[in-house]
């Protein structure tokens, strides 16, 4: 019990308490801009949540996510007519998972070269391909009774390929093996988020949420998918992309922040850069 209390207290330092409202505001403002103003078929409303989760831990992450959606819904001015409130559950799960990624040190920059760069990147790309293949082989997609349009599989392959290539390029150009793990974490978070969201969207809103993603839902229904499966299909298309992009944004922010800033957060020791000389004790520092 005492251990649990200390675990909780360690995650909520003053710095984290200050960070949470900033993160909530970032979520709401960017999400509102992307969903309601730009009408893109992604969300970008969890940058703050994932940021807090991976610098502070699962609980602050989850609370940031839940509060973001609730405050967004009830905030005078922008909340009216948005459908975000009930998805607080999803946001909480995303933040909690980000905390776990933070504990695992996923968001740490890992400057590397040679094999140390290629092996993690290859593993990560393999995992992305595996996830895409897993989605590809979901029986509902190929079952004509479920009636997904025929382009769903093409879209999945396209997204999988694009994601793999982007990760490979990112890892190669920045010489940073960390990007590979970030991509995997983002994709896994996205799949979980889609699975959590679909029943909410289906039960509460009849499957459509008034955002840019409705286009995909409509297309899937046109193909004959039922309410729940259309929402799930839309989620499985949008969420992994969205969370991977979001995770990369967070990763870039953390890579851009000073070690001094990061080290003061509860999980700071798992975020600060591993120096190339430590990572490659063979001395292959590649001239940086």
């Amino acid at each position, binding site marked *: 019990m005492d251990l649990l209390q200390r675990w909780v207290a360690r995650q909520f330092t003053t710095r984290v*308490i200050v960070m949470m409202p900033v993160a909530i505001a970032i979520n709401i403002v960017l999400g509102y801009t992307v969903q309601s103003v730009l009408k893109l078929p992604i969300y970008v409303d969890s940058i703050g949540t994932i940021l807090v989760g991976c610098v502070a831990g699962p609980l602050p992450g989850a609370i940031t996510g839940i*509060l973001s959606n609730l405050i967004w819904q009830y905030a005078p001015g922008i909340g009216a007519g948005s459908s975000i409130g009930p998805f607080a559950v999803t946001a909480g799960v995303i933040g909690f998972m980000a905390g776990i990624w933070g504990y695992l040190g996923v968001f740490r920059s890992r400057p590397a070269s040679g094999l140390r760069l290629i092996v993690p990147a290859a593993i990560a790309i393999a995992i992305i391909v595996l996830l895409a293949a897993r989605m590809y082989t979901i029986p509902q997609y190929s079952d004509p009774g479920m009636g997904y349009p025929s382009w769903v599989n093409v879209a999945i392959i396209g997204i999988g390929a694009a994601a793999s290539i982007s990760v490979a390029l990112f890892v190669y150009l920045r010489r940073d093996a960390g990007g590979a793990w970030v991509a995997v974490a983002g994709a896994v978070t996205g799949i979980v988020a889609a699975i959590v969201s679909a029943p909410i969207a289906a039960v509460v809103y009849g499957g*459509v949420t008034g955002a840019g993603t409705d286009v995909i839902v409509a297309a899937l229904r046109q193909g004959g998918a039922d309410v729940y499966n259309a929402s799930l299909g839309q989620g499985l298309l949008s969420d992994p992309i969205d969370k991977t992009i979001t995770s990369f*944004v967070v990763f870039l922010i953390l890579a851009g922040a000073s070690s001094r800033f990061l080290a003061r957060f509860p999980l700071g020791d798992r975020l600060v850069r591993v120096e190339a000389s430590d990572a490659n004790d063979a001395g292959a520092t590649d001239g940086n």
Partner: protein
Amino acid sequence: MTPERPTATSPVVAEAEEAHLPEFVRRIPVGPYRALNPVTKATLAVVAAILAFGVRGWTGPAVVLVVVVSCAWTAGVLRRMAPFALATLPLVASILVVNTFLYPGAHDTIAKLGPLSPTWTGATTALQATLRVVAFGFSAALFALTTPVDDLLVELERRGLGRRGAFVVGSALGAVPSTLERAREVADAQRARGMETEGGLWRRFRGLVPLIGPVLFGALAEVEERTMALEARAFTAPGRRTILRALPDSGRQRAARWLLFVGSVVAVVVTLATPVRLP
């Protein structure tokens, strides 16, 4: 901690409550709905959400809508809720169109319009979802329009929310408009140097990066300063703050809160888990 330390129930606060702070310090709202304690209003909003979303069919949302509208009428904010009703239009339009025209598995066609065939099942589902969305949207609007955030936070802190929770919620609400303002400035600045925010999907997508970067780094730069400021003001000191401002509450309201909350949960459980079906 000395025993004389004033707490919510101690004489010091009771006196302040009794004396009623002068109106230029704090205007106590009047009227049957407005005079309710902020926590009661919050409970009403939560119960409205539970009922509107949890009780399926027409009954739940309809009851919520009627109660919310009559509360709004009593509080005199019915007219100010019009913009909120307008704001739900895109969502409502999307729900109506997608469900009416593309309801999977429905064959009771209303009419044939070229390649489209709207169905009764779809239309019914769409109208029910619309009713839910509107009822919930109105309850959120009523709460937002009649409850000053400060009052709610003060009340929650008195009931043991803790100053950290109060700070996070209060500060986040304040940070939203200022961040929105910053995002607008950044967008204007980027547009001035040629960023495209209109046009095709890819073009809008590319507009994201120069928007997100400056907004994020600007916001994070403040974290360090605010942390210092809070630490310097004994934010982490042990013990509870004494809150002088007390808002009226009553035993009846407390009972009503519990009754409403438990009642709404029971209603949801009954309609979901038993054969009882409301229209």
